[in-house]
């Protein structure tokens, strides 16, 4: 524990969180709008400009930021001001904290905090997001906000279970909970040609994980806590930067889900069939980080495509799906995995 260590840790936080995660989250807000527009045969936002530079609308996140900062910061009468202030911060902070254990490349240097039980850390810290939802809805002293918060809390608790259980199968296969160990384990090849990725050994686990984590993210088709279009959600009373924080949290969560899925099910930074012979080590490392980022972006893309394809679930369907379908399936998945592992 010396100052050098602290400095390096801070530098890593800066690079990962600010440069990568938040930037990607901000760009995703624009990507989502342009993408949905093109899906619906529209153009989407493309007009924000500095001078004559439009950059296909890429300046919109910047414009949105200025707008969010300069709008009136409204606190409703009777709101609990402290919780009202804390709720968006908790939501964003808990999401960002999860990135601490994601290995972006080979070796300790590319993880902010290499933990042996990294996956447990993610599950534990990620659960804090519920507080953002519940406190935000409750502190705003609004009936609809409170109802939204209740829907959100119930939904998050329900799907938390499935999400956790689906990772168990992967842990069992690779015999570790450390994310860097998991990535290393996925570097092997099955029968000499198939990468031993999580999605290959646990296909059902991946599908269930993806569904559950999208539900965790509260986005369509699971956007009942918000329901921007008709029912009013937990951040009904939030405006300006507080709202923008909630909004940004959603997009950071997309990145987080993509990062976890890429790490656990798609081999992390591993590039399959890559022969490191004769190539400079540094070049390979950069390629591996780049491949990991590519995987993250591809998975973000998949989540958005799903979000703009499927309509919203009804609340009873949501609960049925969570408790009667996903939970039994993931338990069965663990049992089958255990039997297969025991037999081999």
């Amino acid at each position, binding site marked *: 524990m010396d100052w050098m260590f602290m400095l390096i840790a801070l530098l890593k936080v800066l690079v990962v969180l600010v440069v990568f995660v938040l930037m990607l989250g901000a760009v995703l807000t624009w990507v989502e709008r342009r993408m949905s527009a093109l*899906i619906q045969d*529209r153009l989407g936002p493309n007009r924000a400009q500095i001078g004559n530079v439009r950059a296909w609308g890429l300046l919109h996140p910047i414009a949105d930021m200025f707008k969010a900062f300069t709008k009136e910061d409204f606190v409703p009468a009777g709101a609990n001001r402290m919780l009202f202030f804390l709720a968006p911060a908790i939501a964003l902070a808990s999401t960002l904290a999860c990135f601490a254990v994601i290995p972006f490349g080979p070796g300790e240097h590319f993880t902010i905090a290499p933990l042996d039980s990294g996956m447990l850390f993610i599950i534990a810290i990620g659960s804090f997001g519920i507080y953002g939802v519940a406190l935000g809805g409750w502190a705003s002293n609004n009936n609809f906000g409170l109802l939204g918060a209740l829907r959100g809390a119930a939904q998050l608790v329900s799907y938390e279970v499935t999400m956790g259980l689906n990772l168990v199968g992967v842990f069992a296969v690779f015999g570790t909970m450390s994310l860097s160990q998991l990535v290393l384990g996925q570097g092997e090849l099955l029968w000499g040609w198939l990468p031993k990725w999580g999605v290959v050994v646990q296909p059902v686990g991946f599908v269930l994980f993806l569904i559950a984590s999208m539900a965790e993210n509260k986005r369509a088709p699971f956007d009942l806590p918000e329901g921007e279009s008709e029912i009013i959600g937990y951040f009904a009373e939030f405006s300006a930067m507080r709202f923008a924080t909630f909004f940004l949290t959603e997009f950071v969560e997309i990145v987080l889900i993509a990062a976890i899925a890429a790490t656990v099910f798609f081999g992390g930074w591993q590039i399959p069939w890559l022969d490191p012979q004769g190539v400079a080590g540094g070049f390979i490392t950069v390629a591996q980080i780049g491949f990991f980022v590519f995987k993250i972006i591809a998975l973000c893309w998949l989540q958005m495509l*799903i979000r703009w394809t499927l309509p919203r679930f009804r609340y009873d369907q949501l609960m049925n799906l969570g408790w009667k379908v996903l939970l039994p399936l993931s338990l069965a998945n663990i049992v089958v995995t255990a039997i297969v592992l025991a037999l081999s």
Partner: protein
Amino acid sequence: MAKLVDRPKADLVIRSYIPEVLRGLRVTSRHFWVNFLTRKNVVTIEYPEEKYPYPPRFRGQHRLMKREDDSVRCVACFLCATACPADCITIKAGERSDKNEKYPVSFEIDYIRCIFCGMCEEACPCDAIRLDSGDHKLPGYTREEEVLQKEDLLAKGGLSIAKQGGILQ
């Protein structure tokens, strides 16, 4: 009489949703890539640069028509102001020296009030006011900008071939 709705039995494949979800993803992906690469199906009209072609009977900003001698056709009969359901037309009448006797000294249309219903055009016995300029009344920054004067309305006006009294020759 209640109508029985046919609910077909769905098999496990359909109830698992997975193939249908994949089909949905295919549809949205196809739209995305087609529009991303070719913009073929994009219906957006980028307004200030491109404009929608208005139908010939589009009712836009008013214009005041002129006589052969370039004077205003309007005789300040107030029928437009009477017909106006929004009470947006304010006229002050005055005396002109020739045989036409009466003309509008001032003719104001308050576009904050105007609803572009075209009743004034219907009511006009002189074919003096028309809404066929084909232009929008552009928004302004002050209330004063939204009240157009006789000169503004005449600027868009043209010669009317109607005989005074509204009968086409």
